[in-house]
């Protein structure tokens, strides 16, 4: 058996005594698509902060490609192959769509290389390809700040993919999107899994169901339950803390 891509071992994070995460364990294998759900304050975003190096865990270890990430700087973790999409779209609003993507695909990411070399042809092609995936070709030279909310979300996802990461961490990609956009996003993420390992955090149950993948339920900083969406929905504990009663039961 090959070793997992990402492994979280007994992670605890304490903010001045408040335990945001406690003894969290999670394993992701190469090519997995995994959804993480949980009520507000369950520690979903903190959990991404730990992986990307924004927050140092009080206890435990994060193993990525068999190496510990603890104590590494954010940009080094990003260069090792972990891309992150934030909850609200975070793109460079004053740059054009194309410029945003150019920064994502550029390699190496050193000042000298950015100053001296022009973008390689293969990277230009990659930018065109990324824009075609998220339907932004016609907006290539538009200031990213002028895009609609959904387009910003997609641009950020495209930027993530442009970094060519092994692991994509996607935080609430469908917040504020229309139903149609939500479906497209779900299909996009599904198509990315396989080549990449994708971890999605979201609240939207329809969206998670459409992803059709294993789900981990986070509650009070702990993994409450892992399994398929249908297993999760039947679990009495999960229903109690999170899902609430189904429509039939209410009737």
């Amino acid at each position, binding site marked *: 058996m090959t070793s997992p891509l990402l492994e979280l071992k007994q992670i605890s994070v304490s903010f001045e005594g408040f335990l945001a995460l406690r003894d969290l364990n999670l394993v992701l294998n190469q090519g997995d698509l995994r959804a993480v759900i949980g009520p507000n304050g369950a520690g979903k975003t903190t959990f991404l902060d730990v992986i*990307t190096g*924004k927050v140092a865990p009080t206890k435990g270890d994060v193993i990525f490609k068999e190496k510990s990430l603890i104590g590494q*700087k*954010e*940009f080094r973790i*990003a*260069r090792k192959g972990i*891309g*992150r999409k*934030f909850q609200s779209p*975070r*793109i*460079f*609003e*004053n*740059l*054009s769509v194309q*410029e945003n993507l*150019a*920064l*994502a695909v*550029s390699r190496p*990411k*050193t*000042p000298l290389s*950015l*100053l001296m070399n*022009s*973008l390689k042809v293969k990277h230009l092609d990659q930018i065109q390809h990324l824009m075609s995936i998220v339907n932004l070709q016609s907006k290539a*030279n*538009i200031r990213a700040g002028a895009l609609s909310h959904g387009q910003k979300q997609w641009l950020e996802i495209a*930027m993530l993919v442009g*970094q060519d990461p092994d692991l994509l961490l996607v935080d609430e990609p469908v917040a504020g999107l229309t139903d149609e956009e939500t479906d497209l996003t779900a299909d996009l993420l599904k198509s990315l899994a396989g080549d990449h390992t994708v971890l999605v955090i979201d609240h939207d149950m329809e969206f998670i169901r459409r992803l059709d993948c294993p789900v981990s339920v986070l509650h009070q900083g702990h993994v409450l339950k892992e399994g398929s969406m249908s297993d999760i929905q039947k679990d009495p504990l999960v229903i109690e803390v999170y899902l609430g009663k189904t429509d039939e039961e209410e009737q």
Partner: protein
Amino acid sequence: MSIFSTKKSWINLTIWVLLIALIIAAPSVLPVFRLNLLGRYLSLAIVALGVDLIWGFTGMLSLGQGIFFALGGYCAAMFLQLNSAGEFPNGIPEFFGLYGVEKLPFFWEPFKSSIFTLLSIWLIPAIIAGLLGYLVFRNRIKGVYFSILTQAALLVFFNFFNGQQKLINGTNGLKTDVTQLFGQMVGSEIMQRWFFWISAVLVILAWFFARWIVRDRFGNILIGIRDDEARVRFTGYNPVIFKTIIFSIAGGLAGISGALYTVQSGIVSPQFMTVPFSIEMVVWVAVGGRGTLLGAILGAVLINYAKSLVSEALPASWMFIQGGLFILVVTALPEGVLGWIRKDGPKKLLFLLGINKKLETYPSLEVNEQGEVKS
């Protein structure tokens, strides 16, 4: 987008033509006194370019550029003092005698070399800016804390230089206008004409250099750092390195600017490191237009020229005018004069004043008198 950029380049071209015409015409039109002033203000445009790089593009408001400006000035002045110290007792600059110093302090020694001096004018400020910047940026100090810190550093340098009579003549500063260079007095008319030309050429070179830095992805990362530093980090770039480099470049530009300003004003003193002067540098850029480079040059030259004209006519009123100008820019023209022109400001002003009539509908649906829609 394409319309926008061609219009932008037209505006830039016009301003450049005017600026270069002014520079070429000035030596034959202006009396030496005015020419010398213009030369000084052109040299100040170089420090303003640096402020635009770190503030306009990267979003770091430094209130301590006076440090690097003064360092460049001191480097130039030390060389000039040594260069003409031959006839003084002990062969060292005259002021040392006042404090009973008989031996040249060690750090003066390398300034006997003209090559060392030419390098040190920009390298010493750049290295100090780089070191200071690295420590600050590594600890993720930004925003208003960064501004306060740079201002505190400025005060530290100011007080230190003020107190060192035996090393650099303290508060009196180092005079350069009576020193010798190439057998000429630095303050003489012919030398001042030369310094004007050197300033003019260096402003243009500095602009090309700054333009080259921000032109492509490096500049986009700077803008990215200004707008969302965390995103830059998670995209795999190390913002600390980029900020250190750009702060160091701005320091080097400030040094060149300070050296040119010193030889044209005839003295360098700790007065270059006062708090208001460093704030003025920011005002030039704010008024000219942040993040436009050309706006920084325009702001520095025009505001300072206005300052000297107004101060001659109505002494003591300049501070009010400068304050008013700053308030006007902050409230009405947040992108500065150049940003305002580029964004159709003049046209909008004409509408406001009722000189141009506004279209009633979308431009493509302009209606004629009979109420029919013209295509």
